[in-house]
Every structure is written in structure tokens, then in C-alpha cells.
């Protein structure tokens, strides 16, 4: 007799909020076999060709397929199914906004909770890693062609993985002293342990990908230098330049970009100062400006380095926040205070030039803007002050122009993102691009999808597909 359908999803065990704000260990602890099997048993196993979850996945993971393998307790089989289209499940299982993708479409939602797809994906990847299982991969014999990948974020790593399997000689160039892009300098340890990005990079090395760090393309080497030595180039350089608001007091001490704040903590380990040399200011009250994942990460990191009162200052209302639902929930549980419909207008400093307060103004929501979200409008006369010891800006990032500022052939949009066509071809022959560099700030999985399709396009180009006369810009 079939068991009755279990309507509630199996929650993933988590560290207690009161404990976890004092450490950087991962918050979500992972399913055990028992929990994973229970959650997997809830899946209705829609047929692959019309499973709505697959349609919601930017990289088309065969979700019912891998869940079936979990039920059969076949981790290797599950891993191989995922790896057909997603080389980094340890990462996507943790950071994808599943509620806006696969899980959003899950038919179980009609009768109960949607399947916890992300957590199951993570389970497969973690379990395989624990057991030392790798997917069977076929590496084509070396075809004598060389491809350079610029940037080691998810876009670059994915492109590298696919190209090396196709038989190319692949070298990844990275500006920083470690590989992984946002995965290592941005997303905090408590959400994505750095050891995971390291593990993925080691795996790529084992497949034959070469990695060279401390190379800023545009400075250390130019794109022209690289094109002299390589047959094609993929730019996965991300959107790394932070935005600030040019309002009075913005350069007071104690005011950071989220990139600086998170880089000091994640990449440079400032939370271990003075064991590690990089310092970070520790105070009592900190305000984060913004409402995305980056803002949540900054706020939750601030708690962990000892700030007692941490505010999220967001100019719209809660439902417009772009952060993953889980991050918002975790931030709330940890005691982050949310202020909605407010924007900073000025920062006030003390005699030493340290920020001591931020002046905020109340907003009301007006007409929808291009993104379809209602535009906040400040209400005159509603200014008020909030005392703070530090402020973090998390209001978006643009691509870094260092790469292309002296390369007139590479055309960019008015937002500074690289122009590419359907096949990820830039306006410079032999040069492809994907990820945040072409989309502006997006997501890990979209960057991976670009890396994958970019790799396919590079393969076609190197097998003789002619370069078009004109690049028809693709809209993202």
C-alpha cells in the first residue's frame, strides 16, 4: 500500500541563532541520510520532459532524476545526474535562490510544502565529497588549442571545467591571491565554507586546468598579450566595483563598501586579527544600506565580529527585498533589525572623522520603475538620525573597468557590462564573456549557466564557426 503523502517538508537542522552569532561555522547543518530519504520520498517524480522544477532551473538539472537516485541510496548515480549540467552542486545547493527557481514551480506546492530541492542537492554533493566519490568524466584527448579564462568565479570555473573536458588546454587567470571570486571573498563562511570552493578548484586542477593567481588582466597582462598566446578567451570577471552614494560624509572613517567589509572578513580573515594581520573596526552599532544577499551577509557578519545592534536600512518594503528568503529569515532570527522605507541622506562624523550617525529620510512608494518595483520617493521633512559606529554600503556593484579601459574593441553598455550576443561573443574577435561581467550583479547559477554555454560557443568557434561581422547584443 502506498504511504500517504507527507505534506510538510523535512526541515534542515541548523545551528541555534544564539550560538551561531558567535561563530563563523555553517548555519545550515545538512541532512542526514534519514532526513534526506524522508524528504526525497515526498517527490512526486514528474516525468523528466515536463517536470516543472527542471524548467525553473537555469542549468536544467534533472531534479526528479537525482531525487530518484537518492531514494535508491545511489549517491554516485545522483551526483552523476547533477553533474551532467551542474559542476558545482556543493555550491548551488547552498546559495541558489531556489524559491525563485526550481522550487517555485514544484507541483507539490499545490497540496503541501514544495520539495526542498536545494537541500537535497547539497546532500548529494556533500555526501559524495565525504565518501570521496567523483563523477565519471570523460576527458577528450588534448586537441592542441589553448583557452584562457579570466576570473575564477563561478562563471570562469564552469567554463574551465567544460573546456578541459572537451580537450582544450585551459588556464585560469585570477587577480586576487585565491580562487573562487565572490565565493571566497564575498559569501561568508557561515553560508558557504571556503573549503568548498577550494575543493572545487582542486578538482579542476586534477582534470588538468592550470591556475595562475595575482594576474590582473588589463594591468599585469593585457587582453592583447593573452590573445597572442591563446586561441580564445573567456572573461568571467564579475561585477566587482562597489557603488557608493555621493552624499555628505560618505568618506568618513567607519564607512565601508560591502566588498571591503566582507573581503576583510572572508578573504583576509580580519575576524582573527591580530593572529591575521588585516584589521577591521569593531564597534557596537552598525547599519547596512541595501536589501539583497550582500546586505544580509554584511549584517550577519557584523554580528559575528561583535557588533551588538545591526540594522538593515532598506528604501522599499520587505516584499521587494532581493535577498534569498532563507537569508532574511536567518538574519531575523539572529536579531538583525530591519528598517523599511528609509534612505540615508547624510553621514555625521565626530571630531576624529569617524562616522557617528546617519541621517535617514522616510520614503513612500511611487510608480513602478523599469524593474517593475515601485520606486521609493523621499517624504520631505521626515529626516531623523540613527547613531552608528560603522556603516556598510550594499547598494550594488558594477563591472570593474580595469579589464577593458584600454581596449577600445571591447564595447560595454551604459551600465558598464560587456556587450555579448546569444553565443556570449563580445565585440572583440576570439573573446567571450559571461556571468556578472555581462549581466551586472546576478546569481551564481546564472553565472555558471553562462560559463557552460560560453564554453560550448568557444568550442564551436575553435572548430571553425566564423566570427560574425556584427555582434547582436543579447539582453539579460
Amino acid at each position: 500500500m502506498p504511504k500517504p503523502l507527507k505534506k510538510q517538508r523535512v526541515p534542515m537542522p541548523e545551528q541555534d541563532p544564539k550560538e551561531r552569532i558567535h561563530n563563523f561555522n555553517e548555519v545550515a547543518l545538512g541532512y542526514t541520510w534519514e532526513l534526506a530519504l524522508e524528504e526525497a520520498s515526498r517527490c512526486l517524480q514528474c516525468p523528466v520532459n515536463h517536470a516543472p522544477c527542471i524548467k525553473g532551473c537555469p542549468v536544467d538539472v534533472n531534479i526528479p532524476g537525482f531525487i530518484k537516485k537518492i531514494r535508491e541510496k545511489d549517491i554516485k548515480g545522483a551526483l552523476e545526474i547533477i553533474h551532467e549540467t551542474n559542476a558545482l552542486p556543493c555550491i548551488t545547493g547552498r546559495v541558489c535562490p531556489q524559491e525563485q527557481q526550481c522550487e517555485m514551480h514544484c507541483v507539490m506546492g499545490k497540496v503541501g510544502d514544495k520539495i526542498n530541492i536545494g537541500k537535497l542537492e547539497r546532500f548529494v554533493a556533500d555526501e559524495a565529497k565525504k565518501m570521496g566519490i567523483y563523477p565519471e568524466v570523460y576527458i577528450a584527448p588534448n586537441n592542441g588549442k589553448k583557452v584562457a579564462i579570466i576570473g575564477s568565479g563561478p562563471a570562469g570555473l564552469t567554463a574551465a571545467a567544460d573546456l578541459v573536458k572537451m580537450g582544450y588546454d585551459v588556464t585560469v587567470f585570477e587577480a586576487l591571491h585565491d580562487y573562487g571570486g565572490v565565493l571566497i571573498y564575498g559569501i561568508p563562511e557561515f553560508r558557504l565554507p571556503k573549503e568548498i570552493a577550494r575543493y572545487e578548484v582542486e578538482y579542476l586542477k586534477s582534470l588538468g586546468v592550470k591556475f595562475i593567481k595575482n594576474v590582473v588582466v588589463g594591468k599585469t597582462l593585457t587582453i592583447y598579450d593573452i590573445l597572442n598566446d591563446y586561441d580564445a578567451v573567456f572573461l568571467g570577471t564579475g561585477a566587482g566595483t562597489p557603488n557608493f552614494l555621493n552624499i555628505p560624509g560618505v568618506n568618513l572613517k567607519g564607512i565601508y563598501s560591502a566588498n571591503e567589509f566582507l573581503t576583510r572578513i572572508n578573504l583576509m580573515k580580519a575576524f582573527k586579527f591580530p593572529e591575521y594581520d588585516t584589521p577591521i573596526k569593531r564597534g557596537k552599532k552598525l547599519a547596512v544600506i541595501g536589501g539583497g544577499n550582500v546586505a544580509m551577509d554584511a549584517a550577519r557578519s557584523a554580528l559575528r565580529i561583535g557588533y551588538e545592534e545591526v540594522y538593515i536600512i532598506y528604501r522599499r518594503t520587505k516584499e521587494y527585498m532581493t535577498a534569498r528568503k532563507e537569508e532574511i529569515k536567518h538574519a531575523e532570527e539572529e536579531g538583525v533589525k530591519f528598517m523599511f522605507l528609509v534612505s540615508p541622506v547624510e553621514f555625521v562624523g565626530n571630531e576624529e572623522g569617524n562616522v557617528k550617525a546617519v541621517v535617514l529620510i522616510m520614503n513612500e512608494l511611487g510608480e513602478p520603475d523599469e524593474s517593475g518595483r515601485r520606486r521609493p520617493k523621499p517624504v520631505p521633512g521626515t529626516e531623523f538620525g540613527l547613531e552608528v559606529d560603522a556603516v556598510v554600503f550594499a547598494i550594488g556593484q558594477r563591472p570593474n573597468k580595469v579589464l577593458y579601459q584600454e581596449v577600445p574593441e571591447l564595447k560595454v553598455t551604459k551600465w558598464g557590462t560587456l556587450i555579448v550576443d546569444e553565443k556570449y561573443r563580445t565585440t572583440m574577435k576570439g573573446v567571450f564573456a559571461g556571468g556578472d561581467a555581462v549581466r551586472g550583479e546576478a546569481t551564481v547559477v546564472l553565472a555558471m549557466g553562462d560559463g557552460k554555454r560560453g564554453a560550448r560557443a568557444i568550442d564551436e568557434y575553435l572548430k571553425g564557426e566564423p566570427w560574425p561581422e556584427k555582434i547582436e547584443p543579447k539582453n539579460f
Partner: protein
Amino acid sequence: MFEIMDKKVLAPNIKWIRVRAPIVARNAHAGQFVILRLHEKGERIPLTLFKWNEEEGYIELVFQEVGKTTYELGSYEPGDKIMDVVGPLGNPTPIQNYGTAVIVSGGVGAPIGYAVTRALKEAGNRVVSIIGFRSKEYVILEDEFKKISDELLITTDDGSYIRKGFTTDVLREYLENGGKADYVFTVGPVIMMKLISQITKEYGIKTDASLNPLMVDGTGMCGACRVTVGGEIKFACADGPDFDAHQVDFDELMSRLVEYRPEEKIALDKYMKGGC
């Protein structure tokens, strides 16, 4: 890993090193810098290029021991290795033939001033070097400057060598005596650059200053290095490090530079006690 090939002590706490870094030497230009990280637990600090040699694949750096990282670097000997060196970073100083170029350097700004002076000289300028040091024992690179300068004016704050006075005094006298200056480049302590820039503003001379804010990545990714120039936010590492001196908010730069003074002291004390 980047090996230290050679090392000299130029003055008390001021050291010169030659580092094997072919990839940095290849595209290096005057006014650019590198970021280095000594070891796994190290911080990233910027140091400006003094000299470089593409054929032999090395760069030369001059630094003053002021904080934990520079003291630690100062303790490295030939054969020792620096974990990470990345560069050249920043934009090269815009070099052209202005006619007469006056380069005003203070203290450990001198090596940067030297690189720029040499480039300006090679571009056909008549170059006048004004360099100031605290006292005789801190005078560095005198011979190097002599070789490339059409006129060399050295001064010491306390008068223990050549003459007494600040670089500002020397520049003012030079201009008052009818000395020519079609372009001024200044590098050194922020207060000095600020005062030099005030003088050249009076005289209406185009002036660039090489700014030295705190940095983390050095590639435009974090904004730690932001400065205000002409009322706008600029990132010194990506937009600079040279800016029109008459537009720079030097007071803000001075304030931001000491942001981590207390932490720097903690780190240095710990290091000096041998607990690195």
C-alpha cells in the same frame, strides 16, 4: 612565491629590496605600484615601484618600516620569499614633454619621485628635483637623482645636510627666483603634498599628486582607497594614484590614512614581542 634577490639598508628603517617578479616587470611604468602579501596570514599592502628590469625579470621596492608588515618585510633576507606580489597596478603617471618639470618628493616618496623623474627626463623634459628629508641620516637616493636631474635641490628639516627647510620652502624660493616650472609632480607625506599644491595653485602650475591611501585589493574592488577629487568619489588604485593636486581633498585623505592606527599599534606591539 616571489624571491627576494637582494637587499640594502638605505637609512634607519628604510630598506631597498630587489624581488624576482618577471610578470610584474613586463608591463611596469613609472608611478605604478604593487600589492604584496607576505604569507598566509598577511595583509595586502601597496608599495610603489622604484625600478624594474624586464630582461632580468625583477622589480625594486623601497619602503620604510612603520607597521607590522613593513617591519616583517624588513626582516626578510635575500633568498626569502614573499607569498603574493600583484601588479603593476594603478595608472602610469601621465608622461609628456611639458618643458620644465619640477618633481617634489618627501621622505620615502623619493623612490616614486625617482621613477617619475626618470620617465619625465626620458620624455625630453628639463627636470628639477626637489627632495626633502628629516635629517642627514635619512637622505636616500641622492646619487640616483643626481644622474637624472638637470637640477637637484636637497633639503633637510633640521638643516643637518645641505640646507635647512621643507620642500615647500625650496619650491617657493625656486619660483620666486624666477625658476621655470611648466609641470609639478609631488609625492610624499600628505601634508607636504597639500602645501606644495597650494603654492603651485597660486602660480597656476599644473600639478599632479601621487596619493597613498589605505588599500586592500588595489584593483577597484573594495573602495577602501577612495578619495575625493573635485567633489567626486575616486578610487585611488583604479582611477589614480595620480590626481590633479588642486582638486584633491587632502584633509580627508589624512584622516582616512590613520583609520587603523590603534589596530596597527596592536599588531606591531605583538610582532615586536616576537609573537608573530
